[in-house]
């Protein structure tokens, strides 16, 4: 335990290493406890990615897709380490081998939620930062979450909202972003989903709608290195059945059974083609449905 506590350091608001951008908000934290290597460069380009804890499979795919490209382009992903969109964002950044900042709702010596310990360690391994304004083993409480959110928004030039329900904590972060006069992005979602209500409202109220990673990268004025994705590259080489499958799934993600019925081919025939397309990286399976990559 001693080793871990020693790693924990603190930066006061009058320290010149304290991030300038965070000072600009209404009530910046007096002290920032952190774990990891404090490199001021990490704060240069920061995007807060926030969203629902109850992430849908659509949300997973979008988070993964956007964050991977944004992080790969060198933008630091800042989020709140909660399960759901937060965790998927951190994970996507880490998997791209990039730095990410997790702002904890609890004391710096705690991991909350504890079962995401592996993600916590991955973040540190990839030169990321764990930050909290609370010391020691301060437990998370209803009031610590909105306070955490103000740091997430305060550290970032812009905030990206992926999936938010009505009256959710995510909307607090969005509100704080607006109050700080920072840029707010929101991802549109299917109107049938409860977690699209919040994002739809944000877009109506003036948040910029995001349809690709480019929208955000343009704001940061950085290049997308990850633009060529496997799906489009091999698109031309598809045979007849593959082509029909691809078009159908491009229209709407489907389960094997529905796809077999629509295309009128047997599941064994379809199954083999789907496996091959999956190996080639054209398709992927998420929660029982096939999606186009």
């Amino acid at each position: 335990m001693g080793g871990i506590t020693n790693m924990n350091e603190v930066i006061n608001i009058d320290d010149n290493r304290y991030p300038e951008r965070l000072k600009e908000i209404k009530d910046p934290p007096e002290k920032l406890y952190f774990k990891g290597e404090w490199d001021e460069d990490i704060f240069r380009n920061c995007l807060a990615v926030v969203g629902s804890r109850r992430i849908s499979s659509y949300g997973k795919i979008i988070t993964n897709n956007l964050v991977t490209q944004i992080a790969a382009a060198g933008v630091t992903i800042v989020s709140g380490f909660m399960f759901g969109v937060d965790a998927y964002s951190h994970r996507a950044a880490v998997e791209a081998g990039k730095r990410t900042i997790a702002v904890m709702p609890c004391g710096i010596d705690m991991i909350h939620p504890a079962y995401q310990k592996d993600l916590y360690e991955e973040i540190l391994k990839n030169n990321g930062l764990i930050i909290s304004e609370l010391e020691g083993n301060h437990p998370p409480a209803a009031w610590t979450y909105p306070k955490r959110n103000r740091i997430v928004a305060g550290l970032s030039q812009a905030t990206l909202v992926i999936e938010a329900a009505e009256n959710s904590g995510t909307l607090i972060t969005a509100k704080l972003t607006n109050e700080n006069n920072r840029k707010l992005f929101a991802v549109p979602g299917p109107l049938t989903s409860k977690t699209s209500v919040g994002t739809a409202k944000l877009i109506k109220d003036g948040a910029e709608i995001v349809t690709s990673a480019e929208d955000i990268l343009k704001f940061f004025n950085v290049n997308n290195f990850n633009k060529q994705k496997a799906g489009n590259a091999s698109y031309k080489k598809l045979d007849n059945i593959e082509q029909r499958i691809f078009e159908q799934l491009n229209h709407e993600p489907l389960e094997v059974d529905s796809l077999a019925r629509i295309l009128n081919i047997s599941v064994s025939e379809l199954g083999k083609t789907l496996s091959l397309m999956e190996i080639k990286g054209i398709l992927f399976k998420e929660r029982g449905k096939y999606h186009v990559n």
Partner: protein
Amino acid sequence: MLIKVPSATNSGLHTIKVEVEVDVAQKGLPTFGIVGLPSKAVDESKERVRTAIVNSGFKFPGNRIVVNLAPADVPKEGSFYDLPIALGILSSTNDIKLPENSLFFGELSLDGSLRHAKGALLLALFAKERGIDNIFIPQESANEAAVIEGVNVYPVESLKILLEHFSNEEGVIAACEYKEKDIKIFDNQAEFDMKEVIGQEQGKRAMEIAAAGGHNLFMLGSPGCGKTMLARALPGILPELTEEESLEVTKIYSASGYMPPGGSIIKIRPFRSPHHTTSRVGLIGGGSRPKAGDISLAHRGVLFLDEFNEFPRSVIESLRQPMEDGNLTISRSMEKVNFPAQFMLVASANPCPCGFLNHPKKACTCTERQIQEYRKRTSGPILDRIDLHVDLPVVDTNKLSQDFKVKEPLEDSQQVRQRITKARQKQKQRFEKDSIYTNAEMKNRHIKKYCPLSKEIKQLLNQASAAFHLSARAYYKMIKVAQTIADLDNSDEINSSHMAEALQYRAKA
């Protein structure tokens, strides 16, 4: 006068010869005692024997009677020593000569008739092995024993008739001829035909592959999507037991006492679906005198565990070793018993605690954490031993039944079963020189021997391993499944489309 009457006892599936020695002494006070570690049921035999002898119209001797069950150090259980004891007493008082080279077995009723006994088949097998010519067993159990050729099985109705048989030169009891009968031993045969299952095409295909190769199957799906219905349709597509398999299964049912009176050989594959409150002993087998559990009763058949995640962890974990070895040894202080347990596991579970994850209409109310905790309940090592994994989507039955009215009628169970039977025959030929019957039973050495892969397929499998992070065990599982798909396709070797289809049923990371 000392009389020795040969009999036998079953311990698990193993039969031991027991010599029943009866001495009716000319001196001493009238007593009746049994020695040789008799259980309560054996000891009570005294009252049954005495009353049965008297009620059959014979005189019970007023002498000192000592019965010894040899070997004396093996504990004796059951009521099957009634007949040999009674015969021993009667032959010493009435001067009846018992036939040579015979076995006697059976429980007496107070009126002198004989009751149905368990384990008759094992007894006949034992007689055949030891070169014993005749066995005398209760009439109701005789058909079951008569399956074994080369042994004269005499059906005994009552003590009185048996004695008449012995005193008459020509005999009055004819040896039993085996008659095949339909026996109702499993109450849960196919409740549905495959054509009644609408939608779930991939689920049905997975069932077919599993049944063809004896593979274990794991189904994941929301409540009401048809997991149980599919499993209940499974018995209808299972092929008939082969002769060797029949004998193995019948032995277990006979020894466990599940064979009904007038029993015959079991031809259909067992289908067991224990409830999730089943104890470990109930599932695996055990007890101080070990009995077969559901996994052994599902030997060569199906063990269906519905609501897999609701079974206690310790019960599920105990399936590991039998799933690997196809048999298990139950060791107790009194005895060690080995039961075969080569079953096909079909397990079904919900995707999350509320059950509605991925449901197109109902919202799932579980948090990510709850789902993770729930998934963790499913044992990793057990999942690793399951060859086929399939996700079952929720189907809108109203919409589907309209769709299907237009199309040609669906395949019924009989058609699917024919394909499966053919695939099984191919497997039987393949493993002629090995002691296995199905692709699922293949160990790595069998795979290397019987499933040569072309360069192209190896490459495909390696690409898949990289793309889907397959473990070494999963790699071999895929080959086994591909082999079954090839057998269903009546192909002599695995081609890349067989392998690609097999990959559909890999475990989800």
